[in-house]
């Protein structure tokens, strides 16, 4: 049962925190004094200060903007800094590192695989000056409604909770053939950009493995920035790929007209 914000007197809560490294580990019990307004990261810091000074935990802004303190709290991928104690049910609180990535130590995981995937995505490639939306001096002239889809994806803080919860990565370990929701969101932000002229559809279909996504929306559920990754990034990309590779009518049309993907 959750308790309403502000009506809880200071009290002790037990935290079961995963301690270990790449060779293995176990859950260790700690207690923290909970006061109104605390978040899980506060409790972890208190545990570090009072009981386990060697507890490894990655954090930075404590404001849901740096994407560092990703963990699994009571089994759910969440940011520790945005998980209020009042919002958790009574009883022990479990805190574990993200399951989808190799553990370095305690709550810290090695997320470098994500950076490797990121490098595979063709970077932003603006049209030449003097063409659509690009002035002769190279500056862009765009309507707000043309960039809103891109801007939603650019809210991403790269916490990688979506990658952690995605079952294609988490359970099926398709890291080698699947980019994951974070990078579909990034690709969507570039593909839908009115100025960008690069073509990432072949990558998304083949090396990016977007077909592995079965749109079960866990990435959207866990996103702390509330980006509608599935509906506004992945499905629109799947539809563009259907246009190009699976729909016989649009395929024929493209073949007849010689249409390039950036014809709009």
């Amino acid at each position, binding site marked *: 049962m959750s308790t309403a914000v502000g009506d809880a007197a200071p009290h002790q809560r037990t935290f079961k925190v995963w301690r270990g490294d790449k060779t293995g580990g176990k*859950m260790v019990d700690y207690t923290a004094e909970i006061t109104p307004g605390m978040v899980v990261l506060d409790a972890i810091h208190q545990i570090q200060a009072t009981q386990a000074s060697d507890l490894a935990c990655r954090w930075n802004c404590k404001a849901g903007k740096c994407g560092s303190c990703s963990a699994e709290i009571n089994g759910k991928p969440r940011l520790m800094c945005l998980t209020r104690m009042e919002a958790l049910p009574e009883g022990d609180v479990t805190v*574990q590192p993200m399951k*989808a990535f190799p*553990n370095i130590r305690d709550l810290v995981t090695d997320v470098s695989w994500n950076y490797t995937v990121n490098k595979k995505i063709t970077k932003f490639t603006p049209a030449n000056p003097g063409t*659509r939306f690009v002035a002769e001096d190279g500056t862009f002239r765009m309507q707000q409604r043309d960039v809103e889809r891109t801007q939603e994806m650019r809210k991403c803080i790269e916490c990688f909770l979506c990658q952690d*919860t995605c079952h294609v990565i988490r359970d099926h370990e398709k890291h080698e053939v699947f980019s994951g929701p974070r990078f579909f969101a990034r690709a969507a932000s570039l593909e839908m950009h009115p100025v960008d002229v690069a073509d990432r559809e072949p990558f998304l279909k083949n090396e990016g493995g977007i077909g*592995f*996504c*079965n749109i079960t929306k866990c990435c959207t559920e866990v996103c702390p920035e509330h980006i509608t990754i599935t509906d506004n990034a992945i499905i629109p990309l799947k539809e563009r790929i259907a246009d190009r590779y699976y*729909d016989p009518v649009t395929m024929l049309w493209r073949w007849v007209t010689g249409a390039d993907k950036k014809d709009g």
Partner: protein
Amino acid sequence: MNQPSATTATLPQGSGFGATMRKDNWWIGPIGIAALLLSFLIYSTWAAFQGAYYWVPGTNYLSPFYSPEIWGHSPHAFILGQPGFWQSWMPPFSAALLILGLPAGFRLTCYYYRKAYYRSIWLDPVACAVGEPRKSYWGENALPLILWNVHRYFLYAAIVFVFLLGYDGIIAHMFPVNADGTSFTNVQYLATGAENPAFDKTKPVEAHHHVFGMSLVSLVLILNPLLLAGYTFGCHSLRHIVGGRKDCFAGGSGCGTDLHFKAWSFVSFLNRNHATWAMLSLVVVGLADVLVRLVAMGKISDFRFF
């Protein structure tokens, strides 16, 4: 960077079906959705094979499972009787069997329903951060699920169905009457599909005229296409077709126009609650068949208001 090593397996949730550290009742959602989907699947399959009690003599009520009735035994049929190509080895003829594949295909390949049944029936994943029953996985990257990319073709059919069922919903409010104002019931076949022994060839076979009326059944029959429209016109594929495929809406070379933007915005508006539209329309289309069936069987009245 290769995939994470097996060290992650040392985490306490382990792996295997249902393995999780979640403490909430994550299983309620999938069970509820599975119960709803399977109930509808069983009922609609049973109803589609009946070939009877899908219309009500003396009214214009027609079950949405049987519309459009291309061949059939009701006054709604475009061609009265059974199609010549129906073979004896086939199940007893039912008009629904000719058309139900299209709306069924639309829902089967729908992006929302895919989520719903991948989670609640195929358990892949049953819930976020909960272990799965199978290790192997191809997703929608291989047969058969790669075929779900044809969703847009079922959409085209579904749009036609919205208007057909809309027509049915309107005429359900028009009650056929004889010249003297009495209810018109001189039909060749009964709601059971059997020949009507009271059918009188000397009497008119069309109603003299129709009077406007309203009943619980007629309201459900008009609610059905409205919900279906909310579901169909919020389709992810439609969202792509009407404007999502464009990278800009400013007009000019390669860009979409203001009309594209407005159409895309409207579909996006409906799309935000696509799951709700999908489930509401599913429940109401089933309810519409149940009501028509029960009225046709004489089990209940149609609760005519006027």
